């Protein structure tokens, strides 16, 4: 397949870098200001070097991407809330041109799911978005294999930053601010970690899961969300007295979405440590399935994007 990649952050760049390994060509790579476009395949390494070196990705305009003969638009621009723009318009333009879209951007799938599905229904192309939930972990494809109707709930840890902070607080008996500063030094937490620690990032993923289970009907505003900022180190100490620990756990069912700090058994499956993520898929006929792995990172998330590309039918 010929890929046009919008967004040249960690994920977009990694998709470009790994595409050839998965048997695909990159015909366009764009960030918000410039683009490298070539219907015969761009020089990926040159474009990546430019981007990393702080130069324009290429000489073309980002608008030119849509005029290229691509098969799949990879939407990897930063997640935005509310109207989920400009990601949503990118998806709309590709679908209206009867192309496939693979999203790594959570915004459109969490906030405007029904509109996306309506556009898809009118298009020869389809949308896939495995990379929006749990990075490298195959979550949506597992649900697809079980069929969404047979899945009763999805629970788990889908934010590595919050999980890292809670793990360190429990292990070292330190308070939230101290561990957050350490996480920022290590590059685990961003300079502005708000969406990671207040539960928004995890909530977006569970909203997407609820949308998949119920075939739409949810947006971020429907989720009940609590963060980890008010958890003192002493609370983790108390939890440990009884063989438990605290994790930022999300739950998605057909009835709604909830994300908040919860007590879980210290040695239980959901108490993953460090930046690791885990999902528990509760099924009607097959009990619970657990998948754990890296929930973020450029190459990790890119593998989810490229697996999606591989599942698309040819146009």
């Amino acid at each position: 397949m010929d890929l046009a990649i919008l967004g040249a952050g960690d994920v977009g760049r990694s998709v470009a870098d790994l595409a050839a390994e998965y048997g695909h060509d990159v015909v366009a790579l764009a960030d918000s200001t410039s683009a490298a476009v070539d219907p015969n395949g761009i020089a990926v390494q040159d474009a990546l070097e430019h981007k990393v070196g702080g130069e324009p990705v290429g000489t073309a305009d980002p608008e030119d991407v849509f005029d290229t003969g691509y098969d799949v638009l990879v939407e990897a621009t930063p997640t935005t809330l509310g109207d989920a723009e400009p990601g949503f318009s990118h998806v709309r333009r590709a679908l209206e041109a009867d192309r496939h879209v693979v999203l790594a951007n959570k915004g459109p799938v969490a906030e405007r799911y029904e509109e996306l599905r309506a556009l898809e229904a009118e298009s020869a192309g389809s949308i896939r978005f495995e990379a929006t939930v749990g990075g490298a972990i195959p979550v949506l494809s597992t649900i697809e294999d079980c069929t969404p109707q047979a899945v009763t709930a999805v629970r788990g840890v889908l934010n590595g930053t919050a999980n890292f902070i809670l793990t360190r607080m429990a292990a070292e008996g330190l308070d939230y601010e101290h561990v957050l500063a350490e996480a920022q030094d290590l590059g685990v937490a961003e300079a502005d970690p708000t969406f990671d620690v207040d539960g928004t990032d995890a909530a977006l993923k569970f909203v997407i899961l609820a949308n998949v289970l119920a075939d739409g009907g949810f947006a971020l505003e429907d989720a009940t969300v609590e963060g980890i900022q008010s958890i003192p180190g002493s609370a983790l100490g108390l939890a440990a007295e009884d063989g438990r620990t605290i994790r930022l756990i999300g739950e998605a069912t057909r009835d709604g979405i909830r994300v908040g700090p919860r007590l879980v058994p210290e040695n239980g499956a959901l108490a993953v440590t460090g930046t690791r993520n885990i999902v528990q898929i509760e099924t009607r006929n097959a009990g619970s399935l657990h998948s754990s792995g890296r929930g973020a990172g450029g190459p990790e998330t890119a593998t989810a994007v490229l697996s999606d590309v591989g599942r698309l039918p040819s146009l």
Partner: protein
Amino acid sequence: MGDAPEPDDDKPDAEADGGVRAYTVRLELVDEPGELLRALAPIADNGGNLLSIHHERGNITPRGHIPVEVDIECPPDRFDGIVEALRDAGVNVIQAGEEHYGEEINVILIGHLVETDLSNTLSRIEDEANAVVQDLSLAAPDGTEAVASARARLAVNSGRSTAVITAIRSIGTDKDLTVVEPLVGGEA
């Protein structure tokens, strides 16, 4: 109590002969001389026949109490009276029979626990959420005036965990406390 028989989990809890049934009552006793004898008196006084006592001396609860498991038999209509008499005598009954307090949950409360009257918070949990506070552990590393955490282990009736948690959540909202709930449901 070295020769007391170990409680047998497989023992049928129904005794057909004469309409007498066997029950297990779980108590927590203060570690003081005479406490065990005092706890057993209401059983015999109310028509219960003592079958066995399992006194877990080595297994002290974080509150410093000693768990004791007592197997008794009595006619079913006398059982509630025995449990009531135990409670009237000030004995801490954790579990009585099969259907009572079959589940245990932990919650952590975070906030200005002392300022918001921790004792009242716990009473409200017992009254409004219909749970028994079995154990409480408090951590206030910055003093009782600052934000503190408390872990409460609660005995709740089987199948009532979700209702109890919902009630505790609303008590937490009232008192501006963060409630960290257990994850109920699924194989955590």
